[in-house]
């Protein structure tokens, strides 16, 4: 609320201009890359856009709410498995538990993925959020690993090998199998998600969540029962990760326990920290940077993790506020 952060201020305008430019670039990206002969970039961009949703959902609880969840892959992976399992049943024609037929329409698989992940987050969050500090980190990790091992042992759904989704889902009967169409579908959903986040973090709910990170004690003595707000945030974050996972399974045409593994949780965490904890677009920046670094370094050497690791340590040590913080400093000021 400083003067420099007024809507009309040059800093805000510069940031807005940057945002519009990025949006425009995202819209023309598939056409531009095709014209330039780098068609495969569209596919890569799709992966980033989808991953950004998951990172952003983690950022809601980690960055805004101060809940260091180390088990976010649970929701990401389960969202993926909802799509995979529904698809498997659609192919075999067998109803799930004799109740519900399979389907490969996103109009069903996405809402169902959100619902399942929301309920799962409600259950796990209700228990985990009774703890705090290191205990919370460990319990979220433990729950996620339990779910990981559950799916590893589920031979009916591929166990260790995972499930193939031969054909991408349709969307209300519309064909989105084509890479460009799927890119735009993912981009549209990501924009909806980020729009929702933008409103959320400055709403009454969002202010409570930020307050909880800064001092739960303060929140309690102004009369706020913090538990229910943390739980609500946890559920919203779980659903965001589920959305991302459901899209990722469609993108990769494959889902396996890897999506549930703690390494996946760690990667999402790194993206959030890299991009800027508790900033709206930080996680998206983190997704771009981490996924790009991974693929560039992997092309040079198979020991790319040896380079990436120290790089991440440096970022965490020296760039407080992540890359988004750096951009803020370059464009003039922090306005978030």
């Amino acid at each position, binding site marked *: 609320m400083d003067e420099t952060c007024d809507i009309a201020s040059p800093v805000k305008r510069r940031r807005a201009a940057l945002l519009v430019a990025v949006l425009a670039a995202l819209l023309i990206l598939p056409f531009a890359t095709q014209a330039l002969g780098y068609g495969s970039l569209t596919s890569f961009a799709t992966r980033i856009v989808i991953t950004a949703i998951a990172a952003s959902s983690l950022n809601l609880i980690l960055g805004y709410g101060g809940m260091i969840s180390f088990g976010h892959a649970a929701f990401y992976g389960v969202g993926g498995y909802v799509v995979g399992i529904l698809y498997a049943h659609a192919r075999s024609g067998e109803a799930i538990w004799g109740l519900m037929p399979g389907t490969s329409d996103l109009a069903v698989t996405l809402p169902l993925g959100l619902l399942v992940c929301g309920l799962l987050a409600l259950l796990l969050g209700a228990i985990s959020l009774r703890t705090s500090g290191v205990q919370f980190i460990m319990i979220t990790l433990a729950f996620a690993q339990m779910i990981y091992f559950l799916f590893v042992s589920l031979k009916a759904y591929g166990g260790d090998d995972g499930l193939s989704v031969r054909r991408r889902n349709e969307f209300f009967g519309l064909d989105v199998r084509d890479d460009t169409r799927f890119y735009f579908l993912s981009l549209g959903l990501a924009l909806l998600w980020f729009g929702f986040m933008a409103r959320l973090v400055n*709403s009454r709910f969002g*202010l409570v969540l930020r307050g909880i990170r800064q001092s739960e004690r303060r929140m*309690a*003595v102004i*009369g706020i029962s913090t538990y229910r*707000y943390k739980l*609500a945030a946890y559920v919203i974050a779980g659903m965001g990760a589920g959305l991302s996972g459901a899209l990722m399974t469609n993108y990769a045409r494959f889902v396996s326990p890897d999506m549930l593994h703690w390494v996946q949780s760690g990667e999402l965490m790194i993206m959030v920290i890299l991009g800027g904890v508790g900033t709206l677009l930080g996680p998206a920046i983190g997704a771009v940077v981490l996924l790009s670094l991974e693929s560039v370094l992997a092309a040079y050497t198979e020991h790319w993790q040896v380079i990436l690791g120290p790089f991440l340590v440096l970022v965490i040590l020296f760039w407080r506020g992540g890359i988004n913080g750096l951009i803020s400093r370059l464009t003039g000021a922090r306005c978030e």
Partner: protein
Amino acid sequence: MSDVLLRVENLAKHFGGIRATDDLSLDVRSGELHALIGPNGAGKTTLISQLIGEMQPDSGTIRMNGIVINTLSTPQRVARGLARTFQITELLREETALANVALAIQARQGHSFRFFADARRERDLLDPAMAILRNAGLEHRARIHVAALSHGEHKQLELAIALATEPKLLLLDEPMAGLGAVESQDMTMILKALKGRITMLLVEHDMQAVFALADRISVLVYGQVIATGTSAEIQANTDVRTAYLGEGNS
């Protein structure tokens, strides 16, 4: 005695071997400013923490308007009109002074499950928050982040936030600690203006302020109330003089 707002009976709390609260009984009457004095480590802060529900007593009862509130959570007690300030300030450091107060107003208005409207621009929250900051003498600092405010302003803000919850009984934990002479006087004036409208339990080492403000004073030593009375009675009490006001101790 129907005018007792807060009644504490036989309250006890120990940390290992230390009896921080030792069979403590205390009445705070409706409308009074009741000062609680006592040497360092007497158990004043521990008492306040139990009254607001941040700490659970080992035994004893706390009644507000005759109703036992021991089992209520802190937010539930706040909803019933209890509020506290912190001796070591506990503020949202990344927010502005205004945002700190506005959040307390928001909490007072009910649940915060509203996900879309921008709460940073809600007149419903900002206008009353600004009015409270004005009364606390912080109007000109409203849009400054807490981290950039002075210690004295932190103390004023603690009070402003507590007032935003519209308390019936305000528990003040050393609101003048660390303040300069002028700031102390300002705080005394602010509390004087609140007197009568809000019942207060004031923990304070600044004797000048205590004698200027208090209707009654209780003296706490080793977790026990050793005397309660008016300023004159307390100043005349020999037990108190030796235990606390005693010569040598400022």
